[in-house]
């Protein structure tokens, strides 16, 4: 008898998870019920008793926030995916691609009245990573006044697509599919803490179906779908315990 597993997933996973749900249903006969919203929103809903079985966050903060409230099933938390941060510009930008180092004068690439679109560094995961990267590259102080803080990565991307912002910092996955933009440079992986999409079972929801779903998500079949959308698995083998956090 088919069962339904409810997955709360960060909004940036919308297309990937929708594809995953189809394959999962085909493979197991079970259905995935998906809810996409900001990671923070989902976390708060879970804390308020929303009946989610699995939670996939776009960053570690909100996963940890739930963990501290002992709302996660013990030992069920894994880093599911990773991503990269890239610098983008509108297609008609005069800038060409380059290598990002500590010497790059990002502010110099911007005009006086120009903006660089990012997720809000106060709460949007991509923005938080961007801030770390800019800090470690020593650019934060000069760039900060030029930040256009969007409330999610897609909104930041839209600002660049529309030519409002002459630069933008987004995930590689978003940049890969977007039109009207070009990737100027990737941020060095060590310029920010590793980008991770952690997944976990919600405490009290450790049903066979949801455990099966978690396992499936960590498996190769799912990995192939994720990579189709530009996501990568974290560096270490998911089968080994050290991806556990």
């Amino acid at each position: 008898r088919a069962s339904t597993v409810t997955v709360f997933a960060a909004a940036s996973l919308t297309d990937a998870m929708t594809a995953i749900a189809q394959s999962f249903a085909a493979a197991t006969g079970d259905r995935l019920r998906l809810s996409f919203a900001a990671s923070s929103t989902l976390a708060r809903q879970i804390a308020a008793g929303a009946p989610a079985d699995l939670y996939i966050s776009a960053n570690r903060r909100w996963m940890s926030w739930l963990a501290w409230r002992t709302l996660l099933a013990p030992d069920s938390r894994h880093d599911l995916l990773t991503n990269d941060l890239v610098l983008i510009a509108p297609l008609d930008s005069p800038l060409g691609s380059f290598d990002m180092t500590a010497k790059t004068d990002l502010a110099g690439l911007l005009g006086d009245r120009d903006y660089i679109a990012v997720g809000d560094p106060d709460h949007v995961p991509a923005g938080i990573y961007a801030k770390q990267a800019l800090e470690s590259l020593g650019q934060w102080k000069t760039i900060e006044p030029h930040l256009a803080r969007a409330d999610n990565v897609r909104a930041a991307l839209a600002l660049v697509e529309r030519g409002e912002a002459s630069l933008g910092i987004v995930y590689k996955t978003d940049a890969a599919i977007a039109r009207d933009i070009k990737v100027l440079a990737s941020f060095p992986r060590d310029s920010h803490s590793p980008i991770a999409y952690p997944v976990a079972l919600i405490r009290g929801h450790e049903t066979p179906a949801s455990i099966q779903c978690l396992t499936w998500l960590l498996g190769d079949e799912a990995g192939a779908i994720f990579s189709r959308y530009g996501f990568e698995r974290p560096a270490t083998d998911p089968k080994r315990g050290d991806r556990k956090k």
Partner: protein
Amino acid sequence: MIALTPAESEALLLSLRISAVAVVCALPFAILTAMLLAQTRFAGGILLDALVHLPLILPPVAMGYLLLVVFGVHGPLGAWLLKTLNIRLVFSWTGAALASAIVSFPFQVRAIRLALEQIDLKLYHAAATLGAGPLGRLFSLTLPLALPGIIAGAITAFVASLGEFGAIITFVSNVPGETRTLPLAIYTAIQTPGGELAAARLAALSIALGLAGLLSAEFVMRRIRQRARA
């Protein structure tokens, strides 16, 4: 237009249901509140007024969060509802309707109050001497005379419900078939790279639904006005 996808028609019907239920259920309360507010003598008036407008003053996300805190299964009202009536609002379309109702409540109250305040008190005097008590006056004068305001309020609330996003997604999340209304579907589509076309289709659906609501309200209003002039 190309036929609707199942997801689209699901979102459309859900939006319609949630908005309609929200408006209809809130209406009696809106009328009551407007009547209380229209009586200037009522001392707590300004507090009630502020309470009614709260969903407008606060950003929808904050409103949704507040609802989550109050009506979540661990919240004071939510726990009580779950225990005594076994009603769980979070994550269900009824919760979305509640959020819509609360967020669009001020529109209803404002319009009805405005209409109530325009009613000539002398008509009440005439009705009273003809033997109509407070309840009789309510049904024979107040409600029919405030009807344009009631309709205007209801339609604004309906239309606003159709567009309500922040409070719903924060309160009841974004579950297809249960709480994914048109605006949430639009949001979801926008989150998908290349989802602009899907979003535009959904927006067109929204507009069509809103237009249908506006049109029917206009139609009813014209009939009322014509009748009053005949």
